[in-house]
């Protein structure tokens, strides 16, 4: 029950992200998703080993606090904190997100999964989150939104990992998290440098660099 509820909240949070144009809101929702993931991790485990608790703590810390903090810092120097002319506006994005979520629910119902209803909901949420992250990647211009998009992709994969939660070794999950932190860290720095060099973080301007 708790698991389903958390998954539902995650799905809804996707819509909020899609509906927004505000970079600060993206970061807030990304942090929220981080906390939700940590809670989800806690909820799916039947036996609370010390390493599960450690994993929950690290997830909450990294996704709910460190990464948002890094992103906020990247945002601090910037004058414009809104997506001004996205390739796909908020309304259209919400519609596409709805289609994607519906499609995810449809597909997950058809998948040959080992167990229960909860499993198919996990898959649906995972696919929907991946889809939403991808939507963010392709429909927005700001470099920071790209980072948020990648974060969404990763969150989706993380949710997918819940399926195999009993067997997934600690090492794999922690390595994934470490990857993510390093990746975001580097991108944060890159964004700042782009900002300094080109006085804009609009990725469409980067196409001037081609050839």
């Amino acid at each position, binding site marked *: 029950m708790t698991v389903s509820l958390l998954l539902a909240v995650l799905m809804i949070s996707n819509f909020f992200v899609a509906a927004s144009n505000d970079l600060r809101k993206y970061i807030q929702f990304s942090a929220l998703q981080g906390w939700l993931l940590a809670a989800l991790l806690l909820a799916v485990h039947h036996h609370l080993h010390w390493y599960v608790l450690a994993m929950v703590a690290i997830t909450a810390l990294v996704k709910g606090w460190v990464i948002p903090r890094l992103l906020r810092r990247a945002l601090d120097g910037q004058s414009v904190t809104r997506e001004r002319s996205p*390739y796909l506006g908020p309304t259209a994005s919400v519609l596409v997100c709805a289609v994607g979520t519906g499609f995810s629910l449809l597909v997950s119902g058809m998948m040959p999964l080992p167990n229960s209803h909860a499993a198919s909901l996990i898959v649906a949420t995972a696919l929907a989150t991946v889809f939403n992250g991808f939507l963010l*990647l392709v429909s927005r211009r700001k470099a920071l939104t790209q980072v948020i998009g990648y974060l969404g992709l990763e969150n989706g994969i993380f949710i997918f990992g819940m399926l195999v939660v009993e067997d997934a070794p600690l090492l794999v999950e922690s390595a994934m998290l470490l990857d993510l932190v390093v990746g975001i860290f580097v991108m944060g720095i890159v964004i700042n440098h782009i900002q300094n060099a080109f006085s804009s973080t609009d*990725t469409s301007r980067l196409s001037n660099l081609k050839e």
Partner: protein
Amino acid sequence: MAPVIEGCLWAALLGAALSGVPGYWDRRRGALLGPLILSLSAASALVAAALVWGSGAPVALALPIAGAGFLRCDGLSAWFLVPVFLLPALSAWYGKAYWDEDHHPESARRVRLWLGILAASMALIVLAHHAVVFLTGWELAALASWFLLNGDESSEEARRAGWLYLAAAHVGTLALMAGFCVLGGGGAGLGFDAYPARWADSAVAFPAFCLLALAFGIKAGAIPGHIWLPSAHAAAPSHISAVMSGIVIKMGIYGFFRMIQWAPHPPLWWSGVFLALGSLSGIWGVALALGQHDLKRLLAYHSVENIGIILLGIAVAAAGLSLGRPALVALGLAGGLLHTWNHGLFKSLLFLAAGAVIRATGTREMDRLGGVGRLMPVTGFLFALGAAAICGLPPLNGFASEILVYLGAFKGLADWPWAGAVVASLALIGALALACFTKVVGTVFLGNPRVASPHIAGEAPRTMRWPMAALAGFCLAIGLAPSLVVPLLKASMGAFAPGFDAAHGLASWSGFPMMSLLYAVLLAVLLPLLWLLARTRRRAEVTWDCGYAQPSARVQYTAVSYADGLVRNLRWFLWPERSKPKVEGIFPASSRGVVRVTDLVMERGLAPIANGVLWITHRLRFLQPGRIQLYLIYMAATLIFTLFWASSHG
């Protein structure tokens, strides 16, 4: 004996690879040390080859860490090892004066270094007993040739030729990799030991044959894979052209021989493919050579022609294997192998002599040369000797190897349906080659100088002359006494043991001592006559005065006009571009006539295709606007498509 052979081979490999290194510390001494070390490596390789032939058994070379099974020297390797080291060593001596430190301070060291590496990498190819080692040597040789080709880095022509060469070489390498993968499938691995069993499987043999034939054909310069060859050989420094034409392209031929060895029972259509490649390369190559005005480009097309002759020999051997006729196998293989050596010898000689002419006159245009033989008698004589050899005239070495292929084809007339085509092609090639080389020798060395050349020097320096003389000596020796190389041939063909008995096909070789005897008698009669002729007084006159009152040197037959009759006869497949000069009235105005023979495969085949591809890609530029977002969508679409495709097929 094996440790001695192993030691000699390692010494040769390492010596050659490092021969150019001392020059980077000491220019003056490096210029001497480079050729010297390369010659010592060559001597060491010759000893190893002789020992391998003597023992009759292949010798495995152990690698320091990887162990045995990667390098092996059998009779066939030994046969190719000889020119692999000999020709670069002689060219290096020649290059000491031809590409010296004073005139080429930037590149002399680099050319020496890569020449040594080229020799070592080719040795790696012929010693390889594992696909990875083979590919390593293959790639290294291609890169070394590219660096050598660009010896003169200021030459735009060399750069363009280099790009074409590099592209063609990599197409070949790609095909080779794919071919080895096909052969290595089914758990066979990449060692050559497993290949004979794989070739027996026809589902493997067909794709493997196509891929390897493509790779080896491009490297050997067999038409239509020859597109890179003329420009590369023309643009390279002459002693590098000599090595490239003499032995680098023979690596493709080596590959064909290995294929024959791996597949002891090939289907009959193999011999058809070899025959088609061989006669096409031979006839078209020499016909294109007839139309060339550039001395080195002409020689390059003759390489295509001679590759054709070698391929005809391989065709005879393949037919013998398919039909179970040991005599054909023996004669075809022996002819092909011997012609590989012979072409290496006389083509290197010709390129070196051409280099000496170019160095003295500063031009490769035959129609700007003329009368060079009087200023450079030694070079002229050696070039004429090489020319006679390449035309397959007795008593020189070209005749000795071509007669073997002829004999093989004649023996095959009974049951090989295409044997007649081999004979006809060989005869046509020989006749056209003779026409072509009378043109070269006539325009370049005989007659009078056409253009007052500002800086024509005298005879080439001694360091350039003696490598040419050595090559000419080998041509004469093999030509006069071909029986000398018969034991070596037999030992090399021992590598092909499982398919047939080499001794069976030897009957026709008893003709070689008879040939030598005949030559001896003829020379005994002719030489005194020649000596008498040389003593008679000679007058210097204009060669062609054609009854004109005031003939000038321009009245002489040019290379173009000499070949024009033949080119016109062959126009149905040469498609020459010609514009006639206008001659009207009693005092015609000045006018120009042009005959240009272009390479159809390149100009009408590949170039339009390449332009078409470029046109299409220009039209498709809109797909690449430089937006990350769009690229992500492409990737996702590809992923989804792949998933659907996989699920619908799985």
